Structures are given as C-alpha cells and as structure tokens.
C-alpha cells in the first residue's frame, strides 16, 4: 500500500517529465484485492515449503499441559496431545487495544484489519506514534485520504529522535495532520455511522472532539502468550511486557523450551531477525553448529512516505554508551535527483553517520532518510557488520547519480558547526 501511495506521487510528478497525465482517481478495492491475494499466495508458499521439507503441520491452537506436553485444539474442537523433546515458541505479537478507552474495541480497528478492508477507510484517525502508525498514516495520506495522527508523546520511540522528527516533518508537509501530546478518552458512534472521538489536549487543558470514518489503534503490540498456559510448563515471562524471558541461546527458564521472535523479551521486533534466530537455533538443536544469533547491528527501514533506513546505534545511544567527546557525527542534507525535475521539497532528505572519534573511526550507526532507504541501508549494513570505519567509507567511491553515494561523500561533522545543506552537484 506504501508502493501504491508512492505511485500516486509519481503520477503527480509525471507531467514535469513530459507525460500528459491527468490527475487519476484511486480505487481502494482494486488495491486491497491485489494486496490480499498476494498475502494469500505467501501463505500458500509457506505451506508448500513445509510439505517439501516433510514437516508435519498441525492446524491447531496449542497450549501447555506440562513442560513436555502440548494440547492443541482444531477449529472443529477436536483435541490433540503432542509431546516433544524440544519445544520452540514463536507465537509473535498482536496489536494492542486500549481497552480502558470507552468504545475502543467496538469501533476501532488495528493494522490487522486495515489490509483486509474491502472498502476505503475514508477519513481516518491513527492513534499511536509507532512505525506502524506512521507507515499507515503515510500511505493513507498518499492515497488521498484525510488522515490525522494522534501522538501522546514522541514519534518512533527507540529510534533516533532527530531522524524521527524529520520523518514526521515530511509527513506533515505532505498533508498528514498531527495532534501532538493528545490522548483519546472515548469513541462513540454517531447516527450517520461516523465515529466521534474525544481527546484531552494538555496544551489547552481542554477536551476536544473530531469526527472520523475510521479509528486505527497503533499504540503498540503485545505478545501472544496469554492462552499458552506457560505456568503449566514453568516458562517465565517478564512482569512488565508479558514476553518470554530468554538467554542468548533463545532458551527459556525451562532447558528444553525455547522462544524466538516477537514473543521473546529483548529482541528487535523484526521478521528477518526472528527467521535467522530460528535457523541458527535449529542448527544448534541438530548439533550442526554452535553459532549464536548476533542481535547487534540489525538493519531496518521505516516505510513512511519519506523512508528512514538505519543500522547500528542512534546518536543518543552512541553518546550514552561512549560519551559525547568520543563520538563524531558526520551529516548531510541532499537532494535526490528524482526530486529536482519534479520540483519536490527535499528539506528532510538527510543522512548521518555516527562514528567513534578515535581513528580509524569505527562506524557505530548509519541513518538514511530518503527514497529507497531500505535498498540503500541493506548494502551498508554489510559494511557495518564487517566493522567498517569512517576512513574506509571515505575511500569508497560513490555511484553517480544515486542517493546512496551521499553516504560515501559525508565529510561535514556536527562538531565543526559547518552547514550540512546541499551545495551543487
């Protein structure tokens, strides 16, 4: 859906390049069907793979009876008891509903529902500041829908905050409305079917209301552990997050029970990370290797309208870990070539590289805000994994014309106080 929104932007740019395109309407149903069909084809692909590798697949809902026994219930209600030498829990997480807010459950939806809507969500209020909230609000705006984001405190908690505010700045420039510092208190349905949301605005000290067609809760995710009966197996969870406590080998409090992915405490909530951890665990359990998952320097990208890719430490984390005097941050604003002819505003297109100050200046973190951030960041993630230094980055020749070359061209440090904005080609 992010791609669908980006295409809308390209349609707008097209006349600058000579294409005689009129503004085109967007049909949600066509896009939704294509997305849904794609997801179903992925489900099929997984089933085929399991079959190929002779994995026995039980389509049942499982819970623990004891540390070695699991009971599964099929859709029809039939129970099956399974026991195993090793048990791996990978039940992931689910979007959290703010159950204390009146009307939240009955009238709001989550990201799980958004992609399965057959009709356009219309005027939408997205509550939350997570990457899910911003990505959804981003593409909804791009598809031409009136979109508002309600943020209680800061955007993208856990991510570099300078980059996070550039992300929301860009979204605001594209028409997404932001209600900062506000918290919803109730959701009601009006006679015409629309939803009325009431919220507290601490800056005015008053209550305010708004009318929307859809309210999307994107306030965080909770692990799928409630129905597992973990106590029966003796598996401990974190009292705050409810996630399963694990060690570096993914082992839980019970030696033969393991947990990977979003359900485990302290892990990046990223699919490729869970997949790799799972593969390494499987190899260890079969005695094929003793390799342990490395959770450091895992790259990721937030697919907001202007994409944000990052790998390694945020500037705040680097300073907290090493001290400001030991950290050097190189940065630059740049203008993507595709923005020039189309006369797009590139004010938020920005890169920063956080390094150790001591030569050869090990790269601690890279942050890239711009088009195709995922593609750009993936390549540099390998360099950082290999322990790249700023000295080596300086010796890397750029590919012209790309946005990625701007990473190799970083020369201005924050400490120098020099102007990092665009200067010529």
């Amino acid at each position, binding site marked *: 859906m992010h791609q669908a929104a980006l295409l809308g932007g390209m349609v707008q740019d097209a006349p600058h390049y000579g294409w005689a395109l009129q503004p085109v309407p967007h049909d949600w149903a066509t896009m939704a069907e294509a997305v849904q069909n794609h997801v*179903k*084809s992925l489900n099929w692909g997984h089933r085929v793979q399991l079959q*190929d590798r002779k994995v026995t697949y039980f389509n049942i809902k499982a819970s623990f009876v004891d540390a070695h026994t699991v009971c599964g219930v099929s859709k029809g209600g039939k129970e099956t008891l399974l026991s195993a030498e090793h048990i791996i829990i990978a039940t992931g997480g689910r979007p959290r509903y703010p159950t204390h807010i009146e009307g939240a459950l009955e009238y709001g939806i989550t990201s799980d529902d958004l992609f399965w809507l057959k009709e356009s969500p219309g005027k939408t209020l997205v509550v939350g500041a997570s990457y899910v909230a911003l990505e959804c609000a981003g593409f909804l705006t791009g598809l031409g829908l009136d979109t508002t984001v309600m943020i209680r405190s800061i955007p993208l908690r856990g991510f570099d905050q300078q980059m996070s505010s550039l992300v929301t700045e860009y979204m605001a420039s594209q028409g997404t409305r932001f209600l900062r510092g506000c918290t919803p208190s109730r959701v009601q349905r009006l006679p015409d079917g629309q939803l009325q949301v009431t919220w507290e605005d601490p800056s005015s000290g008053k209550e305010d209301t708004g009318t929307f067609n859809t309210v999307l809760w994107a306030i965080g995710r909770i692990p799928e552990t409630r129905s597992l009966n973990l106590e029966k197996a003796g598996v401990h969870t974190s009292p705050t997050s409810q996630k399963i406590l694990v060690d570096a080998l993914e082992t839980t409090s019970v030696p033969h029970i393991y947990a990977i992915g979003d359900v485990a405490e302290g892990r990046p909530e990223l699919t490729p990370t869970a997949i790799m951890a799972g593969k390494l665990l499987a190899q260890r359990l079969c005695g094929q290797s003793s390799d342990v998952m490395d959770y450091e320097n895992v790259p990721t990208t937030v697919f907001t309208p202007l994409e944000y890719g990052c790998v390694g430490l945020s500037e705040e984390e680097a300073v907290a870990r090493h001290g400001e005097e030991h950290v050097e941050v190189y940065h630059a604003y740049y203008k993507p070539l595709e923005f020039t002819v189309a006369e797009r505003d590139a004010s938020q297109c920005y890169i920063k590289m956080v390094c150790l100050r001591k030569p050869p200046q090990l790269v601690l973190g890279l942050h890239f805000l711009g088009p195709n951030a995922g593609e750009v960041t993936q390549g540099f993630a390998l360099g950082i994994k290999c322990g790249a230094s700023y000295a080596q980055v300086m010796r890397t020749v750029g590919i012209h014309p790309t946005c990625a070359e701007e990473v190799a061209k970083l020369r201005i440090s924050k400490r120098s106080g020099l102007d990092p904005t665009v200067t010529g080609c």
Partner: protein
Amino acid sequence: MMVQIIKDMDELKTFLKAAGSKLVVVEFSAKWCGPCQKICPLVHAMSLQYRNVMFANVDVDDSRDLAQIYHVKVIPTFQMFKKAQKVTLFSRLKRAFCCNGSGIVSKPIFEFCGADAQKLEAKIRELM
C-alpha cells in the same frame, strides 16, 4: 457445468471412473491467483469445444488434502489422467505416488504447470 468442481478424493475417484477412457484434465487453482483468473474463461471454452475430454477444477484452499496428495506446488497446475492403455500415453510422469490407506491413488499421465493456454490446448489435443 462443463468444468466439474471437485472437493475431495472420493469425488475425484468417481469423476475418473465416470470418464471411462476419455482424457481427464484436472486444474488445481486458487481464488487469489492472478494467472488462474486469466486462464479460467479459456479453460471453460476448451471444455465446451472438446466434448470428448472431461474437465474438473480443484480449489487448493478448499481442498488442501487433494492439493497435498498430488504434490501441487505451482498454481495453476493441470494434471491429466487417462485410463491405462499402453506405452504411448505415459509420456512424462512428474511424480510417483505412494499408496494411502484406502487403496491405490490414481496417477496423472502428465502434469502441466502455469497459465499458458496455447500450450495447454496443444497438450490436450495430443493426449485426447
């Protein structure tokens, strides 16, 4: 209904028996598969044109067991059956089968993957 919808092994066995010595074409498809939707009207047209060929369709989501038994990986997949006669008909066997508890499972004489309607028609004409 020129293309018979088949839900399970029993229905498939009944269909194959009723076919006698006619060529049987079974399409494994899915509602979410674009190429399947494209080739659907063409298969229907073929079922009307080739009256001495029996056509059937299996939805891999509705009939997961059948899809598994016939090792369907790619969609659409067309499997062709013909009562064993002699040498020439076993032109290309893609996969061997093991017997399940209820008896010997019917083997296809040819498997065709993908939504190339022309190739499909050519093969049907060759085997029918």
